[in-house]
């Protein structure tokens, strides 16, 4: 899903619009967590790395979304100590989160296909 969303959004010509990035924050976080548990800083790092300059997340903005996902029961968390001794809050995808991600992915695909059909633009 992460690759699909990013491939759809990635463009070397222009940075992706802020509104589009904002609307996809939750689904991007869930996609990263599907790969395995992770903490805020690492989630941002992974997404920015995949985005490859197409957009850059403002790091702090990920936390309100993470906390919202936690309240919705789509992710759960646990504190874990790193080798440096620093404690980090790891987020883990719940079964409900997995279902939400699948539903969101389907919606993204439908939306993407509809845009392609309507615009008649097809990228390789």
């Amino acid at each position, binding site marked *: 899903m992460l690759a699909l969303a990013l491939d759809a959004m990635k463009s070397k010509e222009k940075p992706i619009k802020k509104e589009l990035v904002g609307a996809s924050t939750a689904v991007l976080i869930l996609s990263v967590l599907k790969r395995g548990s992770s903490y*805020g800083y690492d989630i941002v790092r992974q997404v920015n790395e995949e985005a490859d300059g197409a957009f850059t997340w403002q*790091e702090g903005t990920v*936390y309100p979304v993470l906390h919202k996902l936690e309240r919705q029961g789509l992710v759960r968390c646990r504190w874990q100590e790193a080798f440096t001794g*620093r*404690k*980090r*809050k790891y987020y883990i995808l719940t079964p409900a989160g997995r279902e939400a991600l699948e539903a969101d992915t389907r919606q993204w695909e439908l939306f993407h296909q509809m845009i392609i059909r309507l615009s008649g633009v097809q990228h390789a």
Partner: protein
Amino acid sequence: MPDLPGDSSVRKIRSLCQELAESYRLDNETRDELCAHLEDKLTGYLSGEVRITEEDALQLVRVHFGNAEQIARRLGRDRSFFRWGLDHNRVYILLLIAIAIIPAVNLPYVLRMAFSPDTPGIRKEHLPNVVLRWDIPLGICYLTAAIAMLWFRRFRPAAARRFTRILNYLLLFAPPLGTLLGIYGLLKVDKQIGYAVQGVS
């Protein structure tokens, strides 16, 4: 193992997070989570794992420069108005607009007198011939020149220099104000380096 931030930096980060937590009533868990994020980021910078972006570098430049607004204000205060502050190009344009506006304001009245001799209370004979002969064309010329000058200065700064020079020579033949402005223009306008390229806006 990556370079870890020093105790002093960690203390600063924690104090910042504590302030945020107090200001926005964040719980301790959220505060610790934000702290861990900032410490991770700092570690990333120190170890070279995170490359500094252009935006980050720009922020650093700003921070190291100091309060730019305050510095600019201090620099501005140190400038003497008469030594550096008098902008001849601006003064010239203002004067040109002023001498264009005065006849322009009178123009409708003069035209009415010239072309409506039957208007009650106004007779064409009251108007000296010199007014009709000079005031109307001169007013129109000044107004056109002022508008053209503003347009050139705004959109064609390079051509504005040539236009100003020609206008100054023409103004010499429009005494008394035009002559004075022409002399002033020839002596003072467009003398600053690069002014013609920048324009006055």
